[in-house]
């Protein structure tokens, strides 16, 4: 086994911020994961009952449905100044609050991250399809003669990094990642590399997405969404009867720091990011490689980067979104990496509870893995009734287990075949 790198080069998680379908703070999210409570709500896009999409994983206690930021509401604990609000996309409000929450949890004030060349911000979202549509509609109606000056920064991919980088005065590095459902996993992986390379000492990682019609409904046109109205039948990763995913939105932020910096200031260390790996399928712009070949390689690379073998992994948080093709590919990849090596980690997909929040998935599930390590539980596959035969050999607990894992693996896969996996380790001083 390799010697551990010096503390200055070990990335650790010191703060988490959650604005998710299963809760808007750490305690609520942990309780929902332990108790198996989903956050899926009925939806009727366009007020059209003919649509097959009946459920979405929604954020509660926020209203960002208007195309005018003047109408938006959010929980009173967060203060969003007008100068910042004007440039935000709707999901930017989720992200702002998630970052504020994560900083508070990490014991950091805004002044602790501002104007420092060793602090970075890496973000991921698909941008705001709604705002883009609305702004271009205004431009079209005026035949190009008028347009909202905030139109670009409040809508395109990158809106998170533009706005949050400015608001929080980030000087070290600000960057966005665009690999669909692997985006925020890429953000986390590269954030850790910045610390491991000694280029940055602290990085705020953010994944966010909207759950409105413009972001979610186009997936129905791809026949990727479940048409079920019953949550347990709609979002059931690995189940033999799975029939598509349930879209979701929100934001999650992670504060990643060099371990020595966290220790110097007495910060809570929730987990270590021990390694990560990535690969690509090179197969289809939208569908996974049928045998999960790319995900298999990404998992193997992550394990090698962390210096661990399959038998040491206690739990895998699968990407599995409840689609027939995707879940099958992942099951095969997991069998190839673990079962064939005689290893039987617990495996679950928490998307049964949350739905699939697209760009936000990687960061959210890395945060769930962090909670599992810090609080000592393994999330179950809550809506799993009859596992697909392709899962033979995989240990898929139905309920959350009061078992404290030491090493966990987090998987994400996105359009174009991007696969990104992180290994997280329980932090023991």
């Amino acid at each position, binding site marked *: 086994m390799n010697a551990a790198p010096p503390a200055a080069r070990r990335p650790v998680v010191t703060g988490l911020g959650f604005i998710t379908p299963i809760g808007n703070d750490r305690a609520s999210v942990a309780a929902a994961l332990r108790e198996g409570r989903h956050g899926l709500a009925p939806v009727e896009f366009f007020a059209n009952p003919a649509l097959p999409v009946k459920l979405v994983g929604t954020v509660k206690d926020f209203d960002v449905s208007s195309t005018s930021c003047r109408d938006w509401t959010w929980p009173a604990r967060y*203060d*969003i*100044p*007008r*100068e910042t609000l*004007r440039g935000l996309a709707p999901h930017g409000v989720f992200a702002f609050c998630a970052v504020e929450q994560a900083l508070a949890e990490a014991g950091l004030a805004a002044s602790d991250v501002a104007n420092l060349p060793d602090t970075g911000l890496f973000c991921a979202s698909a941008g705001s399809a709604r705002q883009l549509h609305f702004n271009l509609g*205004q431009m079209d109606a*005026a035949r190009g*003669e*008028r*347009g*909202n*000056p*905030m139109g670009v920064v409040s809508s395109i991919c990158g809106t998170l990094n533009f706005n949050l980088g400015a608001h929080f005065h980030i000087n070290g590095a600000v960057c966005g990642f665009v690999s669909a459902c692997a985006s925020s996993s890429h953000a986390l992986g590269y954030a850790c590399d910045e610390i491991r390379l000694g280029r940055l000492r602290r990085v705020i990682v953010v994944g966010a997405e909207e759950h409105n019609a413009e972001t979610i409904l186009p997936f129905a046109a791809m026949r990727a969404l479940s048409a079920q109205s019953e949550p347990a039948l709609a979002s059931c990763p690995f189940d033999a009867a799975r029939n598509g995913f349930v879209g979701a939105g929100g934001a999650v932020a992670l504060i990643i720091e060099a371990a020595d910096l966290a220790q110097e200031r007495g910060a809570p260390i929730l987990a270590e990011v021990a390694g990560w790996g990535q690969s690509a399928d090179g197969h289809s712009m939208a569908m996974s490689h049928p045998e999960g070949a790319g995900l298999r390689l990404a998992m193997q690379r992550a394990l090698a980067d962390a210096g661990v073998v399959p038998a040491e992994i206690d739990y895998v948080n699968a990407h599995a979104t409840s689609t027939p093709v995707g879940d099958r590919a992942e099951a095969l990849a997991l069998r190839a990496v673990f079962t064939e090596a005689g290893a039987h980690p617990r495996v679950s997909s928490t998307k049964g509870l949350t739905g699939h929040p697209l760009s936000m998935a990687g960061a959210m599930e890395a945060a769930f893995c962090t909670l599992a390590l810090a609080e000592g539980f393994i999330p179950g596959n809550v809506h799993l009734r009859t596992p697909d035969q392709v899962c033979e050999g995989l240990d898929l607990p139905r309920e959350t287990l009061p078992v404290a894992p030491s090493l966990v693996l987090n998987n994400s896969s996105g359009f174009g075949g991007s696969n990104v996996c992180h290994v997280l380790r329980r932090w023991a001083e």
Partner: protein
Amino acid sequence: MPRNSAHPRVEPLRDDERLIEDLGFDSLAVAETVFFFEDLFKVTIKNADILALHTVGELCDFVARRLREQRPSA
């Protein structure tokens, strides 16, 4: 430069207040305000016109003038 405007002021704006120096507008905020008027009144305001507007009074006079030009009977 005034601090952030999380809590909007309640006193009315005075005509002589300068958008940038007194009210803390940056160039984007000026553009936003202009767009607000453009969208509300369905007028087009050129960049060259905006450069000449420094105070609250000048902005209001400009918009009133444009409206009169577009709706001479009003």
